[in-house]
């Protein structure tokens, strides 16, 4: 065999396989039947290529009244150009239950294209036949017909329609869920029924979602057969302890009757079916539940009741300093998942922690809430290094052992790497690095009034005034001094003539007393002093040349200038000469000096003016 052929076979087999897999044989039968009731058992094969089917000749507990009957159906559907066909073959049996009990109808095998397929097996519960109901009006097929009461039409007794309440536990612990089941029993054609659980103080109530379409089955109650169904179910979480009562609930229903006095043919043609509706309220009984308090609670009790498991996981793979780190803890199990108090995590001290974020997911089941609570702990490590986040303890009340249980997570080691970004500014870092305040200020303080400020008070402006006055005083003083200094010079110039006269008087006296040396000395001083004062030149700077120059500048005649310098030379000469007897000469010198100075003075005075 070559490879190509092999491939072809494999492909054909693969293509055929979905067809083969699609063949199903399904058995249909009502769940509950009454003793003596006729019902239908059907095996449906979803293909028409049925070669043969196993024929049931005997079914334990049931009598085969008719069958098997074979019927086939085929339908083609075209939706948006897509053609699909559905075909089926149904093998049907009509059975009647002989004895009460639960029976399993064995599966049959069907041969399709040489392959055999097995059906599912069906479990049927047979309840004792009773009441006036089913045996007479044997229903054809599986769908139940309304059971008309023997009482007069339109009248509904409490035996025709009622509701029972059952709880799965009569004694529970606080927070331990109770399943409450409201079951409707009726013999009538119930069209509508509505009733709600009111808000209860002692319970947190959650309704179990049930299908909107109720399917009734036959059940017996106090030896009577009824159509019955679970109308609503609630899971109750007791929040208080003691004897708690679930109150009566009022259900409002609508029941349909068919009027037996109406001729069916007439009803068909006149559109009056003869059916009419009646309203009926049904009160469900109340129920008491004993709620025991939880045994003395441990300190770290989380409030969770049920059965739980815990696990933790570090979500941040590469933690860095100053970046957030996410630790996720998941608590899952059965119980009051929504009411769990978040366990605390002891992060190392160097971590900034924030409020954990919690999300819970739960599904209501008849056993209570099943789900999980996910808690995200967010922390920011401030410095790099190796840290250990200790394990988290979670304490709950285990309802299976009726005791507290503490479960732990494993400690987690965290290696914090150096971070790139910093959430703090430099100044904030400096502040945070020094985590304590500066010490109080000790020492003496001056108390004052709050409104009492130095600025803008009169004493404040007084300082301005004082400094201004001081300024004025200093100004006046300095100004005066300057003026005075200016006066001194003028006086000196003006007084030069008087000074020289006074000195010459003194010289004359010295001459008369025959102190020749002193006379010349005084005369010389008088002349020099006069010139110094008059020309405002210090005595030490005076030389003959300078005097001549100055005199020239002051337009003193040359002969007078010469005379003056000659007299100066004479005085110096006679002062140091030994010849002191020439009284004449001293007399003449004196007269000459007085003469020259008076001439000079008159010239310089004129000049000044």
């Amino acid at each position, binding site marked *: 065999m070559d490879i190509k052929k092999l491939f072809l076979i494999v492909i054909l087999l693969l293509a055929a396989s979905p067809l083969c897999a699609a063949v199903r044989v399904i058995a249909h039968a009502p769940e509950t039947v009454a003793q003596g009731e006729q019902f239908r058992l059907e095996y449906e094969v979803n293909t028409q290529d049925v070669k043969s089917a196993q024929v049931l000749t005997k079914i334990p507990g049931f009598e085969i009244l008719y069958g098997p009957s074979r019927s086939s159906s085929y339908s083609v559907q075209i939706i948006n150009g897509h053609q699909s066909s559905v075909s089926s073959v149904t093998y049907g049996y009509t059975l009647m239950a002989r004895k009460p009990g639960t029976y399993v109808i064995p599966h049959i095998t069907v041969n399709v294209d040489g392959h055999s397929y097995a059906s599912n097996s069906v479990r049927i519960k047979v309840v004792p036949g009773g009441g006036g109901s089913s045996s007479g009006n044997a229903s054809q097929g599986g769908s139940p017909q309304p059971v008309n009461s023997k009482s007069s039409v339109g009248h509904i007794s409490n035996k025709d329609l009622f509701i029972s309440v059952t709880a799965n536990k009569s004694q529970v612990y606080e927070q331990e869920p109770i399943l409450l089941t409201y079951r409707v029993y009726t013999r009538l054609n119930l069209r509508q029924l509505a009733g709600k659980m009111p808000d209860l103080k002692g319970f947190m109530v959650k309704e179990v979602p049930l299908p909107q379409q109720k399917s009734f089955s036959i059940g017996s109650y106090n030896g009577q057969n009824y159509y019955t169904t679970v109308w609503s179910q609630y899971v109750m979480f007791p929040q208080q302890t003691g004897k708690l009562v679930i109150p009566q609930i009022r259900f409002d229903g609508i029941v349909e009757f068919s009027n037996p006095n109406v001729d069916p043919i007439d009803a068909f043609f006149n559109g009056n079916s003869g059916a009419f509706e009646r309203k009926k309220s049904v009160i469900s009984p109340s129920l008491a539940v004993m709620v025991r308090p939880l045994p003395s609670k441990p300190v770290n009790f989380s409030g969770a009741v049920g059965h739980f498991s815990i696990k933790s996981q570090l979500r941040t793979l590469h933690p860095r300093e100053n970046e957030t780190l996410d630790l996720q803890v998941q608590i899952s199990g059965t119980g009051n998942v929504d009411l769990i108090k978040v366990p605390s995590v002891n992060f190392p001290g160097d971590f900034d922690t924030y409020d954990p974020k919690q999300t819970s997911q739960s599904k209501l089941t008849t056993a209570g809430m099943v789900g999980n609570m996910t808690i995200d702990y967010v922390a920011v490590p401030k410095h790099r290094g190796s840290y250990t986040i200790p394990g988290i303890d979670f304490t709950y009340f285990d309802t299976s052992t009726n005791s507290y249980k503490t479960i732990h997570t494993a400690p987690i080691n965290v290696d914090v790497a150096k971070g790139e970004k910093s959430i703090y500014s430099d*100044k*904030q870092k400096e*502040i*945070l690095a*020094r*985590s*304590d*305040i*500066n*010490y*109080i*200020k*000790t020492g*003496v*303080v*001056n*108390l*004052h*009034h*709050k*409104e*009492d*400020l*130095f*600025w*803008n008070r009169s004493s*404040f402006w007084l*300082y*301005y005034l004082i*400094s*201004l006055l*001081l*300024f004025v005083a*200093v*100004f006046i003083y*300095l*100004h005066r001094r*300057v003026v005075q200094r200016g006066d001194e010079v003028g006086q000196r110039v003006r007084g030069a003539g008087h000074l020289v006269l006074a000195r010459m008087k003194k010289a004359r006296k010295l001459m008369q007393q025959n102190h020749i040396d002193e006379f010349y000395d005084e005369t010389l001083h008088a002349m020099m002093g006069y010139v110094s004062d008059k020309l405002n030149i210090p005595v030490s700077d005076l030389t003959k040349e300078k005097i001549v120059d100055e005199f020239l500048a002051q337009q003193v005649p040359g002969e007078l200038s010469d005379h003056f310098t000659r007299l100066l030379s004479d005085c110096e000469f006679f002062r140091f000469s030994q010849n002191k007897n020439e009284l004449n000469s001293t007399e003449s010198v004196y007269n000459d000096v007085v003469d020259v100075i008076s001439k000079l003075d008159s010239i310089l005075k004129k000049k000044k003016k």
Partner: protein
Amino acid sequence: MKRIFSLLILFLSLLGVQAAEIQKSLADSMYAAGKYEQAITLYQKILQQGDNATIYYNLGNAYYRLHDMGHAILNYERAANREPGDADIRFNLALARSKTVDKIESNDGFFLVYWFRSFLNSMNTDQWGRLSIGAFVFMLSGVLVYVFGRRLLFRKIGFFAAVVMFFLTFVFNIFAYLQRKQYLDNTHAVVMETSRIKSSPAASGTVLFSLHEGTKVKILDNSMRDWVEIKISDGKTGWMQKTDMEII
């Protein structure tokens, strides 16, 4: 022990004027001994007699030690209002603020305004006032040097000094005025307990946001009896219950 202390306090208060000084040293020693409650009582007694930034600062420290951040910040703020240039006060205030819950992004605005504020806050009213007197005295001295100086260089220096100091005298007085305005201004408050900020001055108003202990708020409208309109540093406004805050 406590009795002796209270007797001592009674005795000291009888002494009158000097009591405050002794009370302060007593309060300081209480603080040093870790008896912060007693220190607080004493500091508050001193403040009934008069006003001083140091007392507010010490009081703030005592509250800080008791982890009462609301009162700690309130008193640090009061101290900073009196001595804006004090480094200790500023540091402790910043540290206490870092321990509060609300971290509000503040928009300080233009950096020059910020600089000017911090320059203005480097001294209080009276310090600026004294500085203005100093500048005035220097200005007058400059005038004297200019008028009576013998040498040209001195006279030039004197002239410029006088002009600059004249200008500074004005500036320092303006600064003193601004500081005084800021000091006497009572339109700021500190949140004392967690408060829900409402959109309208009524308990039924919508909650806009929450503020926590220690946050500084600006008062916009204080005319109602129970409610105050406030503004926080990021610009958000709302109504707050008066009992939740304390005016600085």
